[in-house]
């Protein structure tokens, strides 16, 4: 339960170019999204660096999904800036985001359940051979590559022909992560990868998040579990009602503070005085407002 003593990982791979260390791959500056007159997201600033894990936390309806959809190209932002490699972008399809090296692993739509594992692995980026009228799938190479890549990530499967729906939830997530890593993703967006998993399965997924990070990928880890986030995260952003409530790096925030923010702690603390007068509500354990010293997001200043 202490602040972490270091923010760097001993595991920077030699193939990660050193000059990229400080330049963010993806950057949001005061970005927001409105659907008609409903403002789903407002004033969100976020950076993703190679070899770092940026955690985005928030309760249901906090705007996490909207944030992912903007970065992955499913939706477009309506305010602020979205930069990739320092240049402003606006994706109209997920394909464009993929071409920039931004891959998303969705919680429930990561794979096509009835298709074999290897077909899922290469779906949308199939390997082919032969000239056009006879151009066909290079099935042998694909199977071999999928097997090698999965083993590389520590996933051993007996039969790549089995429908991916027969794998466990954690295994499916891992296949999706391995796929993104193989296809040269520089930024990996993980949408609540541990939400539907048991304790052990979650551990396995967290291990692959760490493995992807150690390969030099920038990871955006969406979760509402602060414990999972704190195990692998370098930077934490807490969303609340579409704005940023907390935006802090690992050395600026402790797990306790993070948990508090996640639980709506700042609001609860403000209510502490009021709640204290209600019989039956135990407020002793609630933190005082002044205890929450972590820096808050820019949105607080603008609103």
């Amino acid at each position, binding site marked *: 339960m202490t602040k972490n003593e270091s923010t760097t990982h001993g595991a920077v791979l030699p193939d990660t170019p050193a000059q990229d260390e400080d330049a963010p791959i993806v950057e949001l500056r005061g970005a927001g999204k409105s659907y008609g007159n409903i403002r789903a997201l407002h004033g969100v600033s976020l950076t993703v660096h190679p070899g770092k894990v940026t955690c985005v936390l928030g309760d249901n309806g906090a705007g996490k999904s909207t944030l992912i959809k903007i970065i*992955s190209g499913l939706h477009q932002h309506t305010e602020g800036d979205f930069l990739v490699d320092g240049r402003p972008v606006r994706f109209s399809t997920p394909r464009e985001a993929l071409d920039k090296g931004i891959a998303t692993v969705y919680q429930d739509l990561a794979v*096509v359940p009835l*298709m074999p594992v290897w077909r899922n692995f290469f779906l949308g980026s199939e390997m082919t051979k032969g000239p056009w009228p006879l151009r066909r*799938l290079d099935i042998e190479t694909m199977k071999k590559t999928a097997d090698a890549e999965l*083993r590389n990530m520590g996933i051993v499967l*007996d039969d790549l022909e089995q429908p991916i729906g027969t794998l466990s939830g954690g295994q499916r997530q891992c296949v999706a992560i391995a796929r993104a890593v193989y296809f040269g993703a520089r930024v990996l967006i993980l949408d609540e990868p541990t939400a539907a998993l048991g304790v052990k399965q979650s551990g396995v997924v967290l291990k692959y998040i*760490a493995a992807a*990070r150690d390969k030099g990928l920038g990871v955006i880890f969406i979760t509402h579990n602060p414990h999972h986030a704190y*195990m692998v995260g370098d930077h934490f952003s807490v969303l609340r009602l579409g704005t940023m409530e907390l935006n802090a790096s690992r050395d600026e925030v402790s797990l306790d503070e993070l948990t508090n923010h996640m639980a709506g702690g700042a609001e609860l603390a403000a209510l502490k005085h009021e709640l204290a007068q209600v019989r039956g509500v135990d407020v002793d354990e609630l933190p005082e407002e002044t205890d929450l010293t972590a820096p808050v997001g820019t949105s607080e200043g603008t609103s």
Partner: protein
Amino acid sequence: MSMTQHAEPAVETPPAPGPKETDGRTARRPLALRLLARPEVGVFLGAAAVYVFFLIAAPPVRDGGSMATVLYQSSTIGIMTLPVALLMIGGEFDLSAGVAVITSALTASMLAYQLTVNVWVGVVAALVVSLAIGFFNGWMVVKTGLPSFLVTLGTFLILQGANLAVTKLVTTNVATDDISNMDGFDQARKVFASSFDIGGVQVKITVFYWLVFAALATWVLLRTKYGNWIFAVGGNKDSARAVGVPVTFTKISLFMLVGLGAWFVGMHQLFTFNTVQSGEGVGIELIYISAAVIGGCLLTGGYGSAIGPVFGAFMFGMVQQGIVYAGWNPDWFKAFLGVMLLGAVLINLWVRQSATRR
């Protein structure tokens, strides 16, 4: 909570791929079970059973000429069943497939006759119209997100009405005029409706087209990117879109493929009978869909094959002609269809469950 992100050491060089390491939790299923899990095996057994049944019940079936008739009957169903099956694997339905065949034939016939041009002009115009109908269906389904059942039910009614109304308007009759004396007719008939002599038996050209198209569809489905996309958009279109599969293109092109099939069968009918009855085609779409389902295609998409529907269509052709050869009342055909459909669905369900059970 002392466990932080340093739990994992730096990524080591991956272990050299040594002798096959296995998970060990999943034993490889026996060959028989793996075979049974294939979508086309159940229908193959069913087709064989129906064939043997009529071989015994209707002695004329044993003759080569009758077999050629059965195959011809199967091929006219089978050629349309193929694109309908691919569309079903892609997660959609086309209720307009039956009347679209007639629309295509009417277009070619009336356009060529009224303008007194070479029939090939009509053939090309019919192709354009058929593809346009397919495009319209696909575009409506993709852009509105409505179930294809509703969209194509609309198209079905529109085409059914328009077929009759336009034909009456143009020819003052419910059938089109005979085009057998027109330029290019003989040539077109050779392409779409000729016969071959094989060992003294006349076999219609559609049988060959049917088998060639089936082989082509199988190859596309299992060995090309496009085939992979068909399974993906039918299995889970959101996942498919998220990993970069062109969902809109795949779905619209599948509907257009049904249009292509309708054009082909429509041309066959036109050049076989020289004239087209504008009220036909209603109800045939259900035969195509049933043949695809009996052929092992999942109604909800994402699963199936092109070979299964070949056997499905053969089963239908066999029953339709077999009843005639057995000397029974042909009205029983539809009743047989219903029984076969239910039976096939139940067998498929049972086979798939027992084959995928571990």
